[in-house]
């Protein structure tokens, strides 16, 4: 049961945070509110101002949404976690989809008024975006902005934001929080779904915590982060990563002047140089879409490089094949686990040997050794605490956090010289995050060099011994993790020390 008798009340003009781990049922609840899923039991009551008497008492109506159209009509707007944008449409087309207007009696689409409407909303709330840009060509952060514009443009009374900050920079998050406050002051109600404690504390008027489909409590933003985390997970969790000071040794990854082109032919990584030594964690901070993905893929030889050298443990690996890099002792946690990390329709046991399926003891003369594979799977599931009924279930049947643990188990159960961890805890709940972080630190302590690439600044700062800030395909600064967040945030937005004052006003 994804949702079990949940009661939630949102007052007019309040920001109500819905806090819960991944898989706790937050999104299910919101999809019911939005008519994407029809509830088995219970009712949704919406109070709206009476049309005849706008300033009087709110009129309550009971709803049972059969489709999102019903929810839209009732004044609900939603910004989805997985973007609900048609990639081949322009921004304006996406925004007017479902509420198109026509030019006169011709029946032709009125694209001009759509553009104007987009411009108006983006100016009013400072969400700048080109109405004629194709959505698929926009960076993820800008796509998010389009989603918000789409919701704002429909004059909704209650705005539901489902994990909206995941792809934003600290500055953009602050801007978003400002927008939310502005909307609240306009009298709109906002449901803010998140598992990020800092943001929830910063913005919410009230907080409802749900766990395993049930409301476990309602609290105010004055509650401490560890109290919130404990409510969310159901036990005490450590929020900081405990680690000894690093003792860097010989370089295991030396990148110099690396250039990588993306699908569109522009230089996503542009003359980048970076060194990772054994026994240290280097964190790459940066807003998504600044070449981090391409950097990780280039190191793993998954993306063709145009120029530059990559040396792994002293050997030139710029032209090596991916399997040669894996054999050189490089572990890789890919950014998109369901696309690159796992074969979703394979069993957990099969997924656990993907990087060694073709060699003893898992295969002899081309025949897989089922007994050995099962032994390995049972062992990994135990050590890495993968929550599943059986190693023979498909990877797709696992929750996000457990899928990630399968990848971590596969990559970490052989000696590594270098670990590339791209977004290692994206979409992973607090409990699993704690576990994965501690394994990464353990890997460092056993002498591997670690490159952590994450768009979560908190994660980079917590894990890294050294922070490299990536912007526009280059490392524009290397700083210590004790550097104030604001300063790093500015670097992430591309301003180096010299023009800091210009960026400040």
């Amino acid at each position, binding site marked *: 049961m994804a949702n079990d008798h949940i009661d939630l009340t949102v007052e007019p003009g309040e920001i109500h945070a819905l806090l819960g781990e991944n898989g706790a049922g937050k999104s299910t609840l919101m999809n019911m509110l939005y008519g994407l899923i029809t509830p088995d039991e219970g009712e949704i009551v919406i109070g709206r101002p009476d049309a005849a008497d706008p300033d009087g008492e709110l009129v309550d109506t009971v709803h049972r949404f059969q*489709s999102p159209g019903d929810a839209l009509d009732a004044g609900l707007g939603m910004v989805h976690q997985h973007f609900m944008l048609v990639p081949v449409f322009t921004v304006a087309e996406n925004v007017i989809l479902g509420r198109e207007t026509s030019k006169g009696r011709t029946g032709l689409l009125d694209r001009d008024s759509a553009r104007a409407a987009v411009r108006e909303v983006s100016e009013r709330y400072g969400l700048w975006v080109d109405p004629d840009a194709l959505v698929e060509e926009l960076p993820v952060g800008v796509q998010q902005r389009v989603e918000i514009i789409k919701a704002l443009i429909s004059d909704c009374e209650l705005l539901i934001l489902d994990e909206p900050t995941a792809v934003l920079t600290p500055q953009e998050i602050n801007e978003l929080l400002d927008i939310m406050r502005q909307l609240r002051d306009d009298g709109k109600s906002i449901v803010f779904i998140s598992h990020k404690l800092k943001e929830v504390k910063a913005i919410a008027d009230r907080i409802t915590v749900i766990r395993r489909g049930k409301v476990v409590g309602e609290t105010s933003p004055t509650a401490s982060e560890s109290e919130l985390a404990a409510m969310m997970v159901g036990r005490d969790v450590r929020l900081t990563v405990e680690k000894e000071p690093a003792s860097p040794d010989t370089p295991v990854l030396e990148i110099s002047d690396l250039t990588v082109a993306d699908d569109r032919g522009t230089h996503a990584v542009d003359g980048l140089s970076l060194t990772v030594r054994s026994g240290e964690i280097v964190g790459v901070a940066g807003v998504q879409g600044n070449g981090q993905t391409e950097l990780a893929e280039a190191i793993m030889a998954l993306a063709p490089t145009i120029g530059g050298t990559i040396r792994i443990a002293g050997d030139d690996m710029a032209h090596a094949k991916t399997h040669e890099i894996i054999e050189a002792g490089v572990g890789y946690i890919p950014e998109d686990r369901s696309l690159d990390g796992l074969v979703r329709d394979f069993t957990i046991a099969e997924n656990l040997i993907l990087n060694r399926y073709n060699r003893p003891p898992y295969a002899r003369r081309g025949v897989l050794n089922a007994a050995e594979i099962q032994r390995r799977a049972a062992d990994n599931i135990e050590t890495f605490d993968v929550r599943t009924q059986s190693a023979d279930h498909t990877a797709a049947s696992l929750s996000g956090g457990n899928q990630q643990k399968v990848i971590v188990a596969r990559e970490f159960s052989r000696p590594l010289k270098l670990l590339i961890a791209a977004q290692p805890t994206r979409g992973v709940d607090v409990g699993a995050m704690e576990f994965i972080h501690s394994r990464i630190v353990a890997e460092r302590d056993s002498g591997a060099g670690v490159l952590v690439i994450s768009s979560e600044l908190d994660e980079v700062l917590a894990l890294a011994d050294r922070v490299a800030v990536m912007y526009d395909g280059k490392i524009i600064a290397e700083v210590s993790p004790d550097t104030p967040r604001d300063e790093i945030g500015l670097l992430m937005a591309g301003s180096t020390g010299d023009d800091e004052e210009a960026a400040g006003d």
Partner: protein
Amino acid sequence: MTTIDVAESAESTALHGFWTRSRKVGTVLAVLGIAVFLIGLTMTAGAEASVRFNLTLPEAAAAFPAKPVVLTLGAVAVLLGALLLTGRVHLPFGLTVGVAVAAVVLALLIWAIARPGNTLQIDTVLKGTMLLALPLIFGSLSGVLCERSGIINVGIEGQFLAGAFTGALAGTVTGSPWVGILAATVAGALVTFVLAALAIRYVVDQVVLGVVLNLLVLGLTGFLFDRIMKDNESATNLAMRVPEWQIPILSDIPAIGPALFGQNVFVYLALVLVALVYVMLFHTRWGLRTRAVGEHPVAADTVGIKVNSLRFRNVLIAGLVSGLGGAFLTIGEALPFSENMTDGKGFIALAVLIVGRWNPIGGLLGALLFGFAMQIEQFLSSVPGGSPVPSEFLAMLPYLVTIVAVAGLIGRVRAPAADGKPYTKA
């Protein structure tokens, strides 16, 4: 236009190494040009090729000295291929390829007919091209309507057959070809109703479903033909005919006049439908929603668009259009119905759909390309004195064109993202 002018300027050497698309195509064109040139060298010097542009104006004819013309055309193809290959001069890709291919085709045609007494009648060839392309235009339009909204329509062949059969039957029984045409569209829609109901409501695999529907309609029309038509042709299965409408002035344009403006109602219907579907698809609310449903149905649903009912409606409309294509095969061609008379045209229409990039205008151009290839095959195999090319090769021509078109001219094709994926709520 959408089909050919894919400049793809972003396609940098850095991304693809030396063999960019224009280099590959350039090489092919240069090789073809050299082949044409060599063929030209083997020709006897005195041969002439006469080309006639208009049936009604016998004086609008010209006789070319075949050898130098073939050699020149071959050289043009080599030159354009070489320019693309070197990449020094920036040429519009689509236009260059078009001109070079046209040069090669024309040269081969002249070579094939260059014997005394043979005449290449341009207007007849073009008119035939249009007629052969017609079912493909209807078929690909039907495919556009279905697949843009996310339903794969492999059953165009079956809808053609149903339309052809019903058109002949209803037309003969009532004595009116117009009733026949109407009945044919309804028959096509009935077939797509089954497709829509099973694919959308019962989530059956759409490709399998389409194949099964083709077989079903083939069997059904064959059975009914045996039982109803065979013994009583005069009352049930006559060759109906719709009048040809000559559009004044326009139909007298040399070469293209008769092909575009001196035809029966099906040609005009097809051209109007292409324009109509194009405008509707890209410039109206219905079109925006249809494309949204075919690309990202969940997104469409979240803004209140009823995904499955829109898909259902579009698939029914598509059936009307492919039924019309079926009616053309009997009523439009003035033929009685015969078993399996569609002969794979529904499948070629699917190829046209892809060559035309799921775009009505692309489909029109693709259909004309196929029609032309088929027309050339028919024309050459009937040249007096026999064609220098074995007839087996000529029969391959339309399919060869498919491969070349898909591989060379079109480049990367992308189907609607949700094509063939049923939409069910979680």
